[in-house]
């Protein structure tokens, strides 16, 4: 069974801090790893990673995948209160179900002013 574990489960920082969120996984037939940001109810897509060692970047957010060690990290630099959210990691595995995603339990990030 595919499995995704995120750490820490929650994190409290102050504006301007840099945070690193972790995601480790176990999967047969890995296809891709994804990061989402969930504010209130609806998650929004951040990154998709398929290859090891290639950093994806969007503004203050960046992510990298290590397929050998089976983990990914999401970095947020110069955090702002608007970064407060749940960050979800998910994997997409090969096989007959092309679109199925397995999610981790999420990291709750709180950024204080």
């Amino acid at each position, binding site marked *: 069974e595919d499995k995704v574990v995120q750490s820490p489960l929650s994190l409290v920082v102050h504006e301007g801090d840099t945070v690193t969120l972790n995601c480790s996984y176990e999967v047969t037939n890995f296809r891709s790893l994804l990061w989402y940001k969930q504010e209130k109810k*609806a998650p929004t897509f951040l990154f998709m990673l398929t290859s090891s060692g290639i950093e994806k970047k969007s503004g203050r957010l960046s992510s990298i995948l290590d397929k050998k060690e089976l983990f990914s990290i999401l970095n947020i630099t110069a955090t702002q209160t608007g970064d407060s959210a749940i960050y979800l990691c998910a994997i997409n595995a090969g096989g007959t179900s092309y679109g199925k*995603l*397995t999610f981790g339990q999420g990291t709750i990030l709180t950024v204080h002013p």
Partner: protein
Amino acid sequence: GAGVSQSPSNKVTEKGKDVELRCDPISGHTALYWYRQSLGQGLEFLIYFQGNSAPDKSGLPSDRFSAERTGGSVSTLTIQRTQQEDSAVYLCASSLDGRFYEQYFGPGTRLTVT
């Protein structure tokens, strides 16, 4: 254009009753997904529809859960004989064909079984 919509936004039901949750995907999106999120948990995959292919039902937790998608658009998730452990937020998402990573989520239905 309009995003994914779900109805109702909140539903309180008594244990043992049946409920139907509705999802209207973004027009033109051929893929539709249902997830469940319990308090403090990540998203749990339930079912996935892609075009005219047979749906992937592998995430449905029991035979009390079923879903259908009529005309390749609107989807209904039905829970029969609800139990208290069914209480959760039920999220629907849709995407373009092949773009499973870029799922657009609806606001969810919060189901409370008393």
